[in-house]
């Protein structure tokens, strides 16, 4: 559905299971000039009006809709009244414009880094990196090596340092991967990051970014081990972390025989 003045386009649907026809149709519409949005029917609407109980939650279905090429924004819909749908679409479009404008503002920090194991990379990792990118012009990932992980957890990660680094280096928002070896300290991390920065950079323009679950641990090092750099904490939803976390995915991998088994199964099914 295209606005007469070509402001934006949108369509509305269930987006529970997607097939090639749906993808092609949506991407053909979305690829036309101007921003494009997708309205996703709420689960209650699907059940009460469309008479089908979707298999995925609204959040999951909105994520599916957002993943289509050239889709700029998504919004939930709980009506089939044309005017009400239009109003929802306009509101979502205006919010999209505000986000776009905010993204064009100068970022709060020049350089930021996140530290982690990133073992079995998942959507939660990506979300953290994207949040870092919203705050910083340049983002580095400081990757814990196999040896460091073994020292701390007394077990090897499921993927090697090289495998984990390969995934991270491929990500657009990540400028480079730095390493947290068995003997790397916080001050070493700062020194490594500084090697990639302008020598005249104000240290406060460099930020170490952690999830809120690590706030109690890292706050004590502000001004000491973290020296003059900034430290920021991003919100982590404890409920969401139960299912979007390395521990959760690693348990699934292990229950199915391990990552190598899953990878070989995937290769067989692609053939």
């Amino acid at each position, binding site marked *: 559905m295209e606005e007469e003045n070509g402001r934006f386009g949108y*369509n*509305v*649907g*269930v*987006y*529970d*299971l*997607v*097939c090639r*026809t*749906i993808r092609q*149709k*949506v991407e053909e519409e979305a690829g036309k000039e101007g921003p494009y949005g997708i309205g996703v029917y709420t689960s209650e609407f*699907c*059940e*009460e*009006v*469309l*008479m*089908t*109980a*979707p*298999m995925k939650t609204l959040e999951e279905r909105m994520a599916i809709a957002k993943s289509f090429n050239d889709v700029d924004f998504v919004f939930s819909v709980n009506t089939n009244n044309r005017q009400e749908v239009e109003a929802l679409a306009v509101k979502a479009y205006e919010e999209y414009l505000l986000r776009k404008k905010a993204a064009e503002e100068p970022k709060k920090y020049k350089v930021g880094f996140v530290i982690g194991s990133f073992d079995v990379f998942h959507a939660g990792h990506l979300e953290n990196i994207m949040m870092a990118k919203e705050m910083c012009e340049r983002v580095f990932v400081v990757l814990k090596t196999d040896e460091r992980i073994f020292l701390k957890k007394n077990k090897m990660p499921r993927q090697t340092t090289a495998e984990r680094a390969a995934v991270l280096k491929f990500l657009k928002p990540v400028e480079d991967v730095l390493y947290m070896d068995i003997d790397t300290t916080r001050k070493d991390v700062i020194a490594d990051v500084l090697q990639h920065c302008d020598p005249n950079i104000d240290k406060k323009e460099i930020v170490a970014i952690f999830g809120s679950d690590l706030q109690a641990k890292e706050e004590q090092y502000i001004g000491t081990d973290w020296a003059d750099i900034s430290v920021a904490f991003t919100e982590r939803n404890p409920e969401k972390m139960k299912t979007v976390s390395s521990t959760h995915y690693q348990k699934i991998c292990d229950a199915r025989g391990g990552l190598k088994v899953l990878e070989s199964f995937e290769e067989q099914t692609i053939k």
Partner: protein
Amino acid sequence: MEKRKFDFTIGIFDTISETIKDKILNDSKLSETYGVGIYTDKYVIEELKTYPTKNQNERLEEVKKLKKVDFVFLVNTTEKKELKELVTKAYFDFINAK
């Protein structure tokens, strides 16, 4: 309160939850005859943007088994005039078959 001669609902009916079954039971109490329209596969994919796990014939058969459903029919439109024709035809086909 006098019941209507017939009433109907239209939907996808791919995954039929208890909520949906209850709704049909409750809605059907307001009419003597109750029909259910099932969106065709093409309509579900192209207009409602989801791929049904059961094809339209399977969904038709599932709905036929539901309590209080007297007749079923396929729907591929939301245009009022076309819908009215579909529903009326389905109802009279049911009456004539009785």
